[in-house]
């Protein structure tokens, strides 16, 4: 007798779009706005098929006016709607940051909790495909730094769907970062992990819960999105050398799941944090500081961190690969940690 394990494979973009579609079916207050999210389905496919299914009222192509559509989403959310807006590349935040930093993040607080903003700002992050200084940033820390915003960055089709559903149902604003190369788009490099099992029925994945994606006893590697996938690959290679690395997929920057990180470090006594964002004042520093504050005496080696040095992301493929931490750098850092 054989059991058939049914795997329903979806790309990252289709998983996201499915989550949005199901929530739009369930709740008529959900609607989508952004540049090229209509018939085009979003330039990274996040809204694929939605316009065809729900029409131009609920899935709107907007003028190129980020301040207007984010501000309008804030207004509509204050009126009880559940808007999802797409900032095409996170790099374009500059033209609309007042709406995000001073309004989206603060209205709940300034109204004493009276005005809720149940909105999602989804945005494409990350590089790795030669899109240079103004189109390759992740800017995780820029958003996570501001009190009042939840900031999530799922790395698998399963989490993209489940966390999108949670984000839409959340009564506070959520910045939903999706990584371009994890969308599984035909015109970009094909990565195995941009496709994965996604159940058709609705489900949620909580915001603020990290995931131990690989267990190990020798060292903890914390990553998010691409750096998590690189970490898993590095861990598989290290296993051949007899080093067992535990890999944590952070999934959410705010709220941050401290406990999962601390528990792991208390077990492995070694920590490497890997980030695709700039090094200075970033996520790696935040996690290193938390571990230093709360688990310093559990450490058997100084914390190591890998991140982008303080330069813009270069266009050239070899240069980009050289400054963005990858499998090789992670492996070397772990080797250094365990030798200590």
């Amino acid at each position, binding site marked *: 007798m054989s059991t058939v394990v049914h795997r329903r494979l979806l790309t990252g973009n289709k998983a996201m779009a499915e989550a949005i579609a199901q929530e739009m079916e369930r709740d008529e207050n959900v609607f989508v706005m952004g*540049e*090229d999210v*209509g*018939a*085009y389905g979003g*330039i990274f496919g996040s809204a694929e098929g939605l316009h065809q299914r729900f029409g131009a009222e609920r899935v709107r*192509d*907007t*003028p*190129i*006016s*980020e*301040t*207007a559509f984010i501000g309008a989403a804030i207004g509509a959310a204050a009126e009880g709607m559940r808007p999802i807006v797409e900032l095409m590349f996170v*790099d*374009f935040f*500059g*033209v609309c940051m007042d709406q995000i930093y001073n309004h989206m993040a603060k209205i709940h607080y300034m109204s004493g909790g009276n005005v809720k903003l149940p909105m999602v700002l989804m945005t494409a992050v990350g590089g790795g495909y*030669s*899109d*240079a200084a*103004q*189109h390759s940033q992740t800017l995780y820390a820029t958003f996570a730094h501001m009190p009042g915003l939840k900031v999530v960055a799922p790395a698998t089709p399963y989490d993209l769907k489940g966390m999108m559903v949670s984000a839409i149902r959340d009564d506070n604003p959520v910045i939903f970062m999706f990584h371009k190369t994890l969308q599984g*788009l035909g*015109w*970009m490099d094909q990565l195995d992990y941009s496709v994965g099992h996604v159940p058709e029925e609705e489900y949620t994945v909580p915001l603020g819960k990290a995931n131990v994606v690989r267990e190990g006893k020798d060292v903890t590697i914390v990553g998010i999105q691409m750096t998590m996938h690189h970490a898993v690959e590095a861990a598989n290679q290290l296993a051949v050398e007899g080093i067992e690395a535990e890999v944590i997929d952070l999934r959410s920057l705010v709220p941050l799941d401290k406990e999962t990180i601390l528990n792991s470090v208390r077990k492995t006594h070694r920590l490497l944090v890997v980030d695709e964002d700039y090094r*200075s004042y970033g996520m790696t520093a935040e996690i290193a500081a938390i571990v230093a504050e709360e688990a310093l005496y559990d450490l058997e080696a100084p914390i190591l961190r890998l991140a982008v*040095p*303080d*330069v813009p992301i*270069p*266009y*050239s493929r070899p*240069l980009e690969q*050289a*400054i963005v931490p990858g499998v090789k750098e992670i492996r070397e850092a772990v080797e250094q940690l365990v030798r200590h």
Partner: protein
Amino acid sequence: MSAIAPAKPLPYLQVLDPKGVIVNPDLAPRLTDEALRALMYKMVFTRVWDQRAVKLTRQGRLGFYAPVAGQEASMVGSEAATAKDDFLLPSYRDVPQAVWHGWPLYQAFLYSRGHQHGGQFPEGVNVLIPQIIIGAQIVQATGVGMAFKLKGEKRVAFTYIGDGGTSQGDFYEGINFAGVYQTPTVFVVQNNQFAISVPVKLQTAAETLAKKSAAAGIPGIQVDGMDVLAVYAAMKQAVSRARSGGGPSLIETVTFRYGPHTMSGDDPTRYRSKELEEEWRQKDPLVRFRNYLSQRGLWSDKDEEAVIEEAKTTVSEALTKADEYQSMTLPGLIDRMFDTLPHDLIAQRAELTE
């Protein structure tokens, strides 16, 4: 009867009709035969180079590229009405204007590959790196104009933006600022009908994009962007006006991009019909101007072939030169961050050299 009537479309400023016949002799720019031939030369050259660039991008030999076919009259006609001393702030699509304004072609190719040398404009070439954050060039062009005014120089800043770009806050703020300070700035809006997949009718309820100038209190005009003489005439007036202290103005060129938005994954058949493209191709700027010039005996098939050959050779040579240019280096990235490196970057540089 309703007091609010639907707005009528404004007529174009048109000098040549699609057949290449002069329909507006009063507005036809007074250009020498040589100057007329130069416009044709540049348009044909640009078309050939665009075709090459599209192919080279597909082969992976160029990097980022935004096709320009269809927009040659708008680009060449407007740039030709400026002086070398005038300062150009292009968008990502405006590489032709930058090259005709003095940017060496091999450097434009290096820019396409993201090489820093691409943006190192030679002394005397008054161009800023092509802008890709929508709208940023508009406010900056106002600032360049401000600087000219403060320094008492009779120079003009000119900049380009697409139809979609006119929805950006920076666009409104920039033209308003220019109006307040009466800066010598010319804003060219190239209305090529689409912003990636979004048609211009979804960008604004304004009757024309030229009309947006009214709120800034600056003159604006809409011209047939497939008619190089109309574009040239309008631009010449705007530039002279700015140079003589008359302040900023805005020109909307009504045109079309035949190709995809950029060579990075866009497929125009997903958002526009073949018929629409065909309709615009009937107004082709090269065909129209070629008809006009050949009727006047100023352009022959031989002339055309000669430019095509020359363009092909020039493009190949520029590509070779770009290929041969030294690669960027890792420590070089850090070296270019500041004029003098701060100590923390010196430390990071050392890590990168390891």
